[in-house]
Structures are given as C-alpha cells and as structure tokens.
C-alpha cells in the first residue's frame, strides 16, 4: 500500500491515514479472460455460472469436503471465471468430477446458481478438452446410460452394470464370488428379467431424440 502522510488525531490517539485508501482489488482485471467462462456457459447446465458472487454457501454445505480433501465448488467456479485454466487442470482435474449430485449447493445458493449442474458442466468442459487422456468413468457411464435409454427407452440395471464393467475393462471384477452370488439371488427371486418390457412407439421417439444429440 502506498505510504500515506496524512495525520489524524481522534481523542488523543493518532491514526495513520490509510483509512482513506481503498482496499486493493481482489481481482486483478488484467488477469481475467472470459474465454473459459463463455465455454462453460454453453455446456449443459452451465448457464447460471456467471450469477455466482463467491459467497461460498455452496462449499460450506457441500457433502464432499469432509471426505475429499480440497473439493471446493466455489473455487472451481472462481478459477473458470478468472480464466485460470492451468490451475484448474493441474490442481483440481481429479476432483471436479467427484460431485455426487446431492444438490445441497443448488438448494442453498442465494443467487440462483444451479451449482450442481455448473460443477458437472466444468467437469464436462475438462472432459471435452481431453485433459484426462482417457475415457473417464463418468463419461463411460453417461454414454452407456444414454445409449440404453435411446435404444430401449428404459434402463435395465443388470445390463448397465455389465456394460459399464466391460467398457472400463473390469469385467473380471464382475465375476467375483460376491457379485455372482448377488446375481444368483436377484435371478432366483425374479428381479432379473431376461426380456424387458418394450415401449410400443419408441422407435419414432428414439429417432427424434438421436437427431437432438447430433
């Protein structure tokens, strides 16, 4: 802070004159690029990111910091808004996708930021830029899930689990004793159906939904 030579005496106490100065800005404007902010805004769920005023209510109530060190939704949003892509990638890329969608942040946000969807959008932003170098579990699951919804209209849990393990190269985990006995119990109690119900006009709907994805 610049040296201030003003003198002020109140009740015999001499105060230095820095009270007249503004606090230095927390955001250094020359540092900011909105390139990444604009990109996240366009992703699914990202549109409300710019409403954030960094109060931290989201992070105060977040489920994860107790279990995942340095998990910080407010911080992720701050880095995107200030264009610190490099820090986001180097320090936080393995954390952002861990959000479990409990929606406490969105519920409590005083500014109407859909924080849970924004955090997902930031994870997607990193996925789209290929910073993980491989298909993440989240991407693999979303792809399998959406593929099954579009094909059959409904979800078959057993098929989803099988396809997920196969896509992530872990089919042998599914063949463990525990999993097999679980599968056996499900099957004998009639909860695994070999022929799922079909929706009669799904083909037409599916066609139209697929156009949307392209």
């Amino acid at each position, binding site marked *: 802070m610049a040296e201030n030579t003003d003198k002020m005496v109140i009740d015999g106490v001499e105060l230095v004159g820095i009270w007249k100065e503004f606090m230095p800005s927390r955001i250094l404007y020359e540092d900011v690029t909105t390139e990444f902010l604009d990109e996240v805004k366009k992703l699914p769920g990202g549109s409300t990111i710019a409403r954030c005023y960094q109060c931290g209510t989201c992070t105060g109530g977040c489920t994860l910091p107790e279990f995942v060190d340095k998990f910080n939704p407010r911080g992720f949003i701050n880095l995107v808004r200030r264009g610190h892509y490099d820090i986001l990638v180097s320090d936080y890329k393995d954390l952002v996708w861990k959000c479990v969608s*409990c*929606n406490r942040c969105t*519920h409590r946000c005083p500014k109407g930021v*859909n924080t849970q969807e924004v955090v997902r959008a930031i994870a997607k932003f990193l996925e789209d830029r290929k910073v993980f170098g491989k298909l993440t579990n989240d991407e693999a699951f979303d792809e399998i899930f959406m593929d099954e919804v579009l094909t059959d209209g409904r979800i078959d849990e057993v098929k989803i689990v099988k396809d997920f393990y196969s896509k992530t190269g872990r089919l042998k985990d599914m063949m463990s004793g525990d999993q097999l006995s*679980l599968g056996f119990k499900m099957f004998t*109690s009639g909860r695994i159906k070999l022929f799922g119900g079909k929706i009669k006009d799904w083909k037409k709907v599916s066609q139209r*939904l697929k156009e949307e994805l392209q």
Partner: protein
Amino acid sequence: MKLGYFPGCSLKGMARAYDESTKIVAEGFGIELMEVDDFNCCGALEAKGSNEKLSYMLPARVMDSAKGRFHVDAVVTPCNGCYHSLLRTNAAMNENANAKSDVISFLKDVGYGSYEGDLDVRHFLELFYNEVGPEKVKNAVKKSLKGLKVASYYGCLYERPKTITKTGYKSNRDDSENPYFQDELLAATGAEVVKFDAAASCCGGAHALQDESLSATLSATILSAAKKAGADILALPCPLCGAALDIKQPEIVKVHGNDAKIPVVYFTQLIGLAMGKSAKDLKLTDPISNPMEVLKSKGLV
C-alpha cells in the same frame, strides 16, 4: 382427483419390493393409482449432464402420456430421481421459453399431445402424508410395530433443490433441511423412530459404479450413524438409495466393518406390515441386508 402412477425403471427391476408395497399401501388407504404403463426412463442425472434439451424431452414424454393418454390430474412417483427429473422439466418449461418451445416441437414431431409443463408432480411419500396422514395410519394399524427401532432416511432429491421442488413455497412440501413426513408416518405404526443425524445426507448412490470407494464411504457413514442411534432397521423412500445402502451393503461391510451392517427396507414395506399384510406380499425377503431376521426376532413376521 385422478392420479397417474409413474414407477420408473428401478421399481420394475431391482426395487420391485418398493413397487409392490407402494401399490399395497395405496390400495389399503383408498388411493387409486393408474399406472402410466408406457413410461420411458426419465433420463436421471445422466441426461442432464449430456444434453440439456434431451433431459427435458424424456420426462416431458412421460408427462404428456400421463396427461394426454391417461387423462390424469397429477402424476405420483415413489422414486427421488424420477421426481427430480419431472419437476426439473416443469420448472424449465415454466421459466424458460426456449426449453418450452423445444419440448413442444419435439412432442409434435413424434405425434404426441401438446404438454405445456402444467402437470402436478407428487412424490408418493409427500402425497401419502398429505392425503392419508399419520392419524389414519394409526387407526388402520392391525399389527403394531412396537419395539422396532427405525432410522428414517430420506435421501437427497426428495426435497432438494428448492428451485424445482418449491419447498417453502408450496404448502404440501416437507421441510427440506429437517424432513419429518416419513418419521411421523412410521411413528404412527407403533415403531420407535430414533433420532438420526444423517436423515438427509447423501448416500453417494449417483456414483455407486463410477467412484465406488467414495460412494461406499458415504453410504457407510449413513448406515453406521443409524446403527449408532440404536436403530434395528433403516427405512427409506428412494430406490437409488436402496441400491446404494442395501444391494451394495455386503461390499460396504467388507471395507467399513460391521458398524455399517443394518437391514434396509422401503417405508411402504413397514407401513404395509403394520396394516397386517404378509411379508411375502410386501417382498420383505428381497433386501440383501436381510430384514427378515430382525423382524422375526421382534415377532413381527
């Protein structure tokens, strides 16, 4: 009031017990449910992360079908995930003109009706509390669950986020920070509802496959909190939490020990039991966490 029943995919698969016990309880208290039997998947959390428009189209088709083909006044679902997707679509259609016109043109293209985002969406727990309520449950008890200590767990999306559930704005909604509807309904059966801090915590079920160890840790926190509170059994209103806390429980216990071992059932199964329905009809043998053992020891089955 004509009610459409949207069970969702889980209730037609692993969570069969929830589907059947819900129907038994509804019938017992004179709630007529008309099943929207050509429903599709609501898109869950995956659609909204993949494509915004698609995440509104999937639930809109369900609601259009409920309204246009089944002519219902409201649609009720027992699944927290489906409840979230349907409400989220209505909120978007009412607040965002682009989302609304996208959905309307989609429905037109596939030869459906002209759904406008105006169907009332109810969670079965909330509906049952408001339309029936603890007093009527108390009067209908044939077999009191006295002596059974229950932890009442709600999960995340039942009353969160308020931007779509309109908690605090709509009089029929539960308290979002300290939900109590299920507590009061279970207490009406004669069971003792224990004080339980993790009632609205997250079970991590959304990442049950993608991030297994974190999901197991979150689930273990809830299960052991219930056990520590002295509960014999944990009751819940969500099939996804059911998958995370019940079906995954053997794996959780392997890592986190027997502190996390506690039987898990759907709240409708306990209410049905108090109504005098059989364990077989209520599918109380379905849960992997074996509730039959404790229910037998209390002389309830």
